[in-house]
């Protein structure tokens, strides 16, 4: 049996990589993919602790997180399409106003 904290360390590495991408990249879709990476790191933590404590609630939370990530991806990518139609770019530096 693999100890739980190895999975936690893997999850921490993936989460830090996602934070790094969100902080340093400017392409909106790449930033969005880094957010998905962080969501997956948290999912791995949920599943690792679910096995650690023999609680199935952790797995059910992962199910809900997946559903919400799907909704988030649909709405977020629609926002990027709309932004691209208006400005012909998805550089987030170009989209720093909340209007037009």
């Amino acid at each position, binding site marked *: 049996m693999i100890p739980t904290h190895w999975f936690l360390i893997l999850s921490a590495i993936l*989460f*830090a990589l996602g934070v790094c991408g969100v*902080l340093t990249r400017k392409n909106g879709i790449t930033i969005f993919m880094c957010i998905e990476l962080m969501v*997956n790191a948290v999912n791995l933590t949920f599943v690792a602790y679910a096995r*650690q404590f023999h609680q199935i609630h952790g797995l*059910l939370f992962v199910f809900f997180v997946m559903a919400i990530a799907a909704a988030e991806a649909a709405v977020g990518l*629609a926002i990027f*399409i709309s932004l691209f139609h208006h400005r*012909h770019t998805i550089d987030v530096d170009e989209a720093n106003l909340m209007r037009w």
Partner: protein
Amino acid sequence: MITFAIFFFFAAIAVIFAAVVVLHRNPVVGALSLVASFFALAVMYVLLEAPFLAALQVIVYAGAIMVLFLFVIMLLNLQHQEEPRTRPVQQFLGYTTSAAFGLALIYYLAKFGVTKLPEGPFVSDARTVGIRMFEAYIFPFEMVSILLLAAIVGALILSGRTGAIPPPTGENKL
């Protein structure tokens, strides 16, 4: 012992492809690397005795969400675009901050990680998960269905063209 070899192999794959997502300048390569990273995470779920979630990870994340990303990247014709390298100080600060954050996370998780696993197998197949889902989480389940409906309507409204906008020609500026 073979389990440890599988763990380290797929953990390395997950981390390497996640690093490619963060560092590569082409978003198509990033999206495909993210698919590979999600497959490695599905193997992690199998190692954690959650085969149902591993199947969901492959179907929902690698199958549905990443295909949506690839469709949008190709729809916007972004595959030849390079990000200009600007603001070196902010980039450096971003790298150092995230590295410090990751080291702190690893330190505390290794320090306070529980080590003793409880006895007995952890039953988490589709039957058990489904029974617990519809016993205890029926209300959140219905709320998620309403949320997904709202997301569909929101995506349709947001991505619908309003007014006459001239289509971009040739290589788009990032």
